[in-house]
């Protein structure tokens, strides 16, 4: 149960990002599939290089922000639909992520492999030996220095507290931001670009801010997930947008008319629910012949059907 909450909250950070781009500023953005990995790749690579986890995470956030900035530039400068612009960036990020990691995937070195002689010597410290034991052989030759990550992967609530704290700070910051006068215009921009221009303000500014914040959140989520799970993989971002969108929609359905904290709670609650449903499907799904890999199909079908239902009841579309 704790693991579900932890993973749900990690996902919710990416979902907040998708909520910002898809809902708040209404710029559909597919970059998260790439910027999620980018966050993980940057964080793990920096950990390798001997930097601390806080610095690595901050740099990961920055890298996501840059990716968002590039999408915003392409979208506003060349007047390209944000979907198309973001597909370009997402595709490009695939190559960039491999460059950053130097390989399609990169494990988080948790042990000082220089002093490790074999599997047995690792047995002492952690309960994750089974998971990490498999990868020791690759460390041995390299002699990688161990890094400190903030997660201990024990079901003792430590990780949960940390992740929940980060999500809480993120939610409060977002809420605070959306309350300010700039945030008001930011929200208004999402529904009426022309009115922003009418007020003598350049609307493109808000496209930049929206896509930057959105991808910064996604990269943060990817970075924390990589540290949490012990690896970064170039394919770990596949489906991020759809999963996050499903989370946002779940949240919207749960809250219906009510819009807590300008809707910033939608993605958080939605992601928790999504993760819960996912683990249910994983645990009991086999009874009806469900495979974990089917989850993405189910998610995609869910998103499409909700959009279809909303389209049919057009007059009731929630603004």
């Amino acid at each position, binding site marked *: 149960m704790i693991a579900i909450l932890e993973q749900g909250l990690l996902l919710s950070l990416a979902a907040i990002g998708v909520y910002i781009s898809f809902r708040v500023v209404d710029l559909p953005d597919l970059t998260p599939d790439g910027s999620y990995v980018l966050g993980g790749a940057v964080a793990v690579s920096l950990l390798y290089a001997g930097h601390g986890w806080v610095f690595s995470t901050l740099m990961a956030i920055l890298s996501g922000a840059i990716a968002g900035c590039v999408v915003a530039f392409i979208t506003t400068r060349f007047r390209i639909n944000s979907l198309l612009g973001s597909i370009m960036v997402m595709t490009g990020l695939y190559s960039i992520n491999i460059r950053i990691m130097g390989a399609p995937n990169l494990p988080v070195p948790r042990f000082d492999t220089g002093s490790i002689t074999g599997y047995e010597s690792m047995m002492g410290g952690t309960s994750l030996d089974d998971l990490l034991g498999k990868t020791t052989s690759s460390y041995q030759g390299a002699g990688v220095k161990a890094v400190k990550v903030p997660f201990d992967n024990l079901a003792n609530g430590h990780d949960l507290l940390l992740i929940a704290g980060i999500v809480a700070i993120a939610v409060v910051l977002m809420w605070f931001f959306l309350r300010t006068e700039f945030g008001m215009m930011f929200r208004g921009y999402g529904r*009426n670009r022309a009115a922003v221009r*009418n007020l003598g303000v350049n609307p493109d500014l808000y496209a930049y801010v929206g896509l930057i914040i959105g991808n910064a959140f996604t990269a943060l989520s990817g970075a924390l997930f990589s540290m949490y799970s012990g690896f970064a993989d170039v394919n770990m971002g596949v489906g991020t947008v759809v999963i996050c969108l499903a989370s946002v929609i779940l949240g919207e359905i749960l809250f219906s008319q009510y819009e807590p904290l300008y809707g910033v709670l939608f993605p958080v609650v939605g992601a928790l629910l999504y993760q819960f449903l996912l683990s249910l499907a994983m645990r009991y799904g086999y009874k009806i012949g469900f495979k974990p890999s089917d989850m993405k199909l189910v998610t995609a079908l869910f998103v499409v059907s909700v959009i279809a239902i909303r389209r049919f009841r057009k007059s009731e579309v929630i603004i």
Partner: protein
Amino acid sequence: MIELNNVTVIYNKGTADERIALKDLSLNVEDGEFLIVVGPNGAGKSTLLKVITGEVRPFSGSCKVYGKVVKSERFFSIASIVSQDPNQGIFPNLTVEENLILARKKGVRGFGFGKIYARSLDLLAFTDMGLEKDLKRKAAKLSGGQKQALAMVMAVSSNPKLLLLDEHTAALDPKSTEKIMELTDKINKEFGTTIIMITHDMNIPEQYGTSVLVMGDGTIYTKIDKSKESIDARQLKEIIRSTVLMNVE
């Protein structure tokens, strides 16, 4: 002052779809003038406003607003525009209050935010639509007339020199139309804002405005200065009708 000299606007030039929207049109609008523009569909009325905002570039001729040649970026700091679509001028997902707060952003001249806001509330109260008591309501949930009242108040909250109105009462019922027109008139009279207003409502030119411009087929048929030519309502209506009809043949 707004000066258009021999302005010609051609849409889709060089294609099979080519269309001349304004033909060699010249027009002066004085400061403080309240000009009502009438004419059949496709006469070029909206295009005229778009030339003034800089949204459409003339093929030939020039347009100067307060002595400066029009550039679209500059426009929004001196002028405001309200169109016929009540949803266009407001942020539907924000509350009335938030809409008003944002509206003061634009080119504030001479007076502070607090004063602008207070004036906005006064103007809202003037329209008598109950908006000033409903500040926490989402703008999307307002009626068409209320939305248009809000859009008008937002448009003038920073005291623009020029207000352009493209059929801003077209979607409203007679009662709301009257309220919005009273507000429009007040803005012109009390703040001295120059107004160019397009309408298809033939009752408006006789009740409001200092002058009437009758357009058709991309040209000006006639411009009537109501203060100089002392004509009564019926005469005015007759002039408009006959001018339009005569030229349509």
